[in-house]
């Protein structure tokens, strides 16, 4: 027994070293996107508090760029509203029906509500990037909600603490988003391959899909996370085909992740209904 104790004391450094290496490896292997814990993420109350305090100072940086970008976005929205008004007026005059404004598209947009949030921590240098926002479960944030800024989609809520939440950025190699070539039926999967934070790829685009350089890519609306039609980016060019039936498009992302500041977290009022339908389906199968 004494010999054993002596042995342990003598080689204690090796035991301690091995213990910490194993512990780190466990942490590494359990880093699962879906089961991430609040305690070990930047959404916990201590790190959240530190980031909130720091963003009180750094929040003022980049305001010039953000302001310019907001003005551009505002101008294009005003333009769009004008066009839509004209279009609605045209339809009204043709159909002469008072209810014609409640078209399905309008109902679809009203389905989503949003919660405004500020980005208090952001990273673009890792292969798996996340950012932290200053809203949590107490503000109605839940895991799986989509996050957009004034330029387009930016991520999905992954871990929600009471006052802060961690969002999986588009700039995360493990995350894929369902996207569409605007005004066409062609759907693909958006993914980021690391490196440049302004470039992503639209994969699994059918071979027969037609596109032009500069075409807009938008969300497909095939999930409760994002409605149809939110900007994602524009087509830069086609990348070498990996499969006979599909090709990959190189996309310039519309959101600037280096100046991410104010974002909107989307709340789908149909989510509970759609989820219950999904479980009903499973029960029916059983």
């Amino acid at each position: 027994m004494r010999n054993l104790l002596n042995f342990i004391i003598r080689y204690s450094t090796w035991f301690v070293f091995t213990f910490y290496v194993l512990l780190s490896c466990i942490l590494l292997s359990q880093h699962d996107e879906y089961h991430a814990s609040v305690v070990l993420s930047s959404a916990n109350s201590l790190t959240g508090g530190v980031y909130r305090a720091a963003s009180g100072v750094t929040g003022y940086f980049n305001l010039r760029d953000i302001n310019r970008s907001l003005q551009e976005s505002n101008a294009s929205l005003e333009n769009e509203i004008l066009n839509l008004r004209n279009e609605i007026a045209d339809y009204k005059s043709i159909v002469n029906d008072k209810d014609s404004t409640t078209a399905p598209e309008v109902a679809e947009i009203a389905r989503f509500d949003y919660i405004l949030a500020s980005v208090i921590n952001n990273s673009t240098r890792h292969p798996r990037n996340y950012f932290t926002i200053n809203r949590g479960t107490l503000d109605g944030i839940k895991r799986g909600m989509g996050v957009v800024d004034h330029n387009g989609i930016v991520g999905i809520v992954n871990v929600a603490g009471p006052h802060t939440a961690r969002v999986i950025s588009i700039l995360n190699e493990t995350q894929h988003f369902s996207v569409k070539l605007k005004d066409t039926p062609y759907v693909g999967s958006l993914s980021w391959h690391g490196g440049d934070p302004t470039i992503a790829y639209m994969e699994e685009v059918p071979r027969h899909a037609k596109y032009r350089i500069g075409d807009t890519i938008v969300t497909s609306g095939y999930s409760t996370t994002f409605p149809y039609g939110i900007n994602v980016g524009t087509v830069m060019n086609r990348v070498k085909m990996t499969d006979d039936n599909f090709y990959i498009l190189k996309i310039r992302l519309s959101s600037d992740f280096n100046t991410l500041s104010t974002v909107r977290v989307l709340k789908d009022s149909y989510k509970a209904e759609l989820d219950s339908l999904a479980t009903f389906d499973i029960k029916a199968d059983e």
Partner: protein
Amino acid sequence: MNKNILTLAILYPLLILGQALICNHIMLFNVATPFLFIYFIVRYPIGASRNLELTLAFLLGLAVDIFSDTPGVNALSCTLLAGIKPTVFYAYVTRDDKTKHITPSISSIGWQNYCKYLVTLATIFCLIEFTIEYFSFTAFRDVLFMTLGSTAITFLVVIGLDSLLPASKTTMA
């Protein structure tokens, strides 16, 4: 020695915050990120409790991990770095009674030895860090460039921090 330990104790939380709030947001030319927090491991006295050093190194890495949402990456890198540190130190400094209890610094082991010691540690750290994070052979070129870039900038910030802090004349315990 006591003064050094006090300085390191005060620096410990500051290094974590400095890394989380400033250095983590720096990525020069898409390859160079400074790892300021390894300053603690670099300057932890040789001959002081190894178990304590490994524990503090692990916790240092874990704290940075929690701030950067990279669980395990920095914790493992810091533990391995603290584990290999004495071997690296004695590769450049003769092992004798004088160097048995010493705080690695410019004044204690000289410019040349300190620079060689620091560059080696920074290279090892960056290599481990990026290899774990980009765990695939396809990213080998990226890992290499990032290691080179980050080693260079880490070296600069550590030397910069060294020059800001009061130089310790105490070399012996």
